[in-house]
């Protein structure tokens, strides 16, 4: 599809282990995101969703490496562009919102400066004064009260919600088309979480931003996203419109996730309903979920299922024995 803003094709990420060998943590992962669209990437911790997000901008930790695949964005393959071209994309065309806003801000720099420096890094020739003025405007846009006074504060002097607003302001400062958000509300108080999600929704509408939201919280996906991709052990196991996936999950893992949630209107957090624990993502053949899956058989343990659309209606799932479409399993 040519109207895709971002397309990840066959992404494979490996990490150097303590023993020195390289272990895959993301396998053959593909996803696409249209302009203005919001995609939720859900999964338990360790499923590779944050690694995927970081790989898009080549922000992997030192041990991590993109072993294969393409990250197509605005006609370039971000997995291969030169560092200097990547710099224009980072913060310029793609903004990032992090899980822990306190850790994502330089503790020794005034928060306003941290927004202004993004403007100066991307706005060729923006003077210090212009950057300052625009930073103030951005701070108002993310609904921070008393922008002038707030500009001069340090991160530790702000509340968690205020810090996350600063991070968001710095992420949108250079006018990006896409926002990557890694668990943007997890570190925040419950009352603040909702405000931040509302703010993200408003900014998306105003600025026409696409959003890739990584979270373990199904409620956040339900509230924020158009489509959802479920990750398990380094692979996407199910993908489709939020309404469709939530109403009629096809992968047994997804059903387990939703089953763990009390209701569709107010789904809770992961994942009490599934016995066992997620294995580390290995290269071994077979479905990684098979040991925990009630429907698994010999084929599941030997042949890796691929993400495939069903013959009839419904969305794709990587399962040899998918749940029948139209079975509202999420309401258990």
């Amino acid at each position, binding site marked *: 599809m040519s109207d895709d803003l971002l397309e990840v094709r066959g992404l494979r990420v490996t990490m150097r282990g303590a023993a020195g060998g390289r272990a895959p943590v993301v396998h053959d992962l593909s996803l696409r995101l249209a302009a203005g669209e919001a995609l939720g990437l859900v999964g338990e911790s360790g499923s590779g969703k944050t690694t995927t997000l970081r790989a898009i901008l080549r922000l992997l930790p030192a041990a991590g490496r993109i072993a294969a695949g393409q990250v197509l964005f605005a006609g370039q393959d971000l997995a291969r562009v030169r560092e200097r071209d990547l710099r224009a994309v980072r913060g310029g065309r793609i903004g990032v919102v992090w899980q*822990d806003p306190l850790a994502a801000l330089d503790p020794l720099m005034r928060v306003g400066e941290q927004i202004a420096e993004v403007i100066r890094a991307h706005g060729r020739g923006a003077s210090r004064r212009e950057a300052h003025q625009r930073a103030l405007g951005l701070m108002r846009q993310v609904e921070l009260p008393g922008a002038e006074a707030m500009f001069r504060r340090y991160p530790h002097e702000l509340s968690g919600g205020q810090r996350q607003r600063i991070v968001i302001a710095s992420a949108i400062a*250079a006018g990006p088309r896409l926002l990557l958000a890694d668990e943007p509300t997890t570190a925040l108080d419950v009352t603040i979480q909702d405000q931040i999600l509302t703010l993200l929704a408003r900014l998306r509408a105003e600025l026409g931003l696409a959003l890739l939201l990584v979270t373990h919280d199904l409620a956040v996906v339900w509230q924020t996203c158009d489509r959802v991709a479920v990750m398990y052990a380094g692979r996407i196991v199910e993908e489709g419109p939020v309404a469709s996936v939530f109403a009629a999950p096809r992968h047994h893992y997804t059903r387990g996730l939703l089953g763990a949630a009390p209701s569709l209107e107010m789904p809770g957090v992961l994942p009490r309903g599934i016995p066992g624990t997620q294995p580390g993502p290995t290269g071994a053949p077979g479905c990684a979920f098979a040991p925990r899956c009630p429907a698994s058989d010999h084929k599941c343990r030997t042949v890796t299922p691929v993400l495939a659309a069903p013959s009839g209606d419904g969305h794709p799932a990587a399962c040899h024995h998918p749940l029948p479409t139209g079975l509202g399993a999420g309401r258990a």
Partner: protein
Amino acid sequence: MAGRLTARYVAGRLAQLAFVVLGVTVATFGLLHLVPGNPARTLLGVHATAGEVAYLSREWGLTRPLPVQYAGYVGRLLHGNLGTSVYYQAPVAGLIGHALPVTLAMLAVGAVFGTAFSVPLALLAATRPGRPADHLVRAVPMAGLGMPPFWIGFILLLVFALTLRVLPAGGYGSTPAAHLESLILPGLTVAAVTTPVLVRSLRLALLEVLGGDFVTAATARGLTRARVLLRHALRNTMVPAVSVLAVNLGYLLGGTVVIENVFGLPGIGRLLLTGILNRDFDIVQSVTLVYALLVVLINLGADLAYAALDPRVVLGR
């Protein structure tokens, strides 16, 4: 100043300062009584006349009880009287007044060189962990710490002054330009002593900061590598660097005594050693005191620097 100081902190810090300074004077006072036998006799040597010994004993008040002697010592110090040099026949305060700026200038030049060496080396190593450059930089502290400061001075002297003949071999010159020229080799030596300690701590601090989230976040905002490294990462290692320097200050400052001697710089370290050679007790005692006061003041400065460098620091809770 970015951080804050509370009034309680300032009061507590000053009280501690006063106590340490008092203790330091007790120690320098006690120095005289470490001298075996009659200090005046021992220090003046076998050729001194009875009159000379009696004069010095009276001058030091050796016949009076210790607390009275100590009170007299502190009283003299409070009047700015640091004793009299037997050898120079001059007040020690004046001699130190002339020598101290030389030592401070050497330290300043050394600090500039030390920073100029340490920061790039630490950056080089920390941005390439486990690679050859890193191993090389990590070997520097090991090799450097095993060298006596005066040995490093010898080598520099041998290479730059005696072989290449590009810099003066010693002395201090008489013009500001000559002063500066004379300070290059001693400053390099000071830097050579400081660099191992500084590189080691800066590298560790940088590694920690570079692995931190805000460096990734700054990179994700599209800042240049230089800005991420210098403005964000390096800036965040300044606090640990200052504290390591403060902890090692005693060792580093002590090294300057010998360095001044190697290069014949007329600083307080050289004054101390000429005092020792001439058995000039008042000089030894007062220079020792001045060194301790220097450490105390620089440590106070380091504490204030924490508050200046890190807005999160609230000294005094």
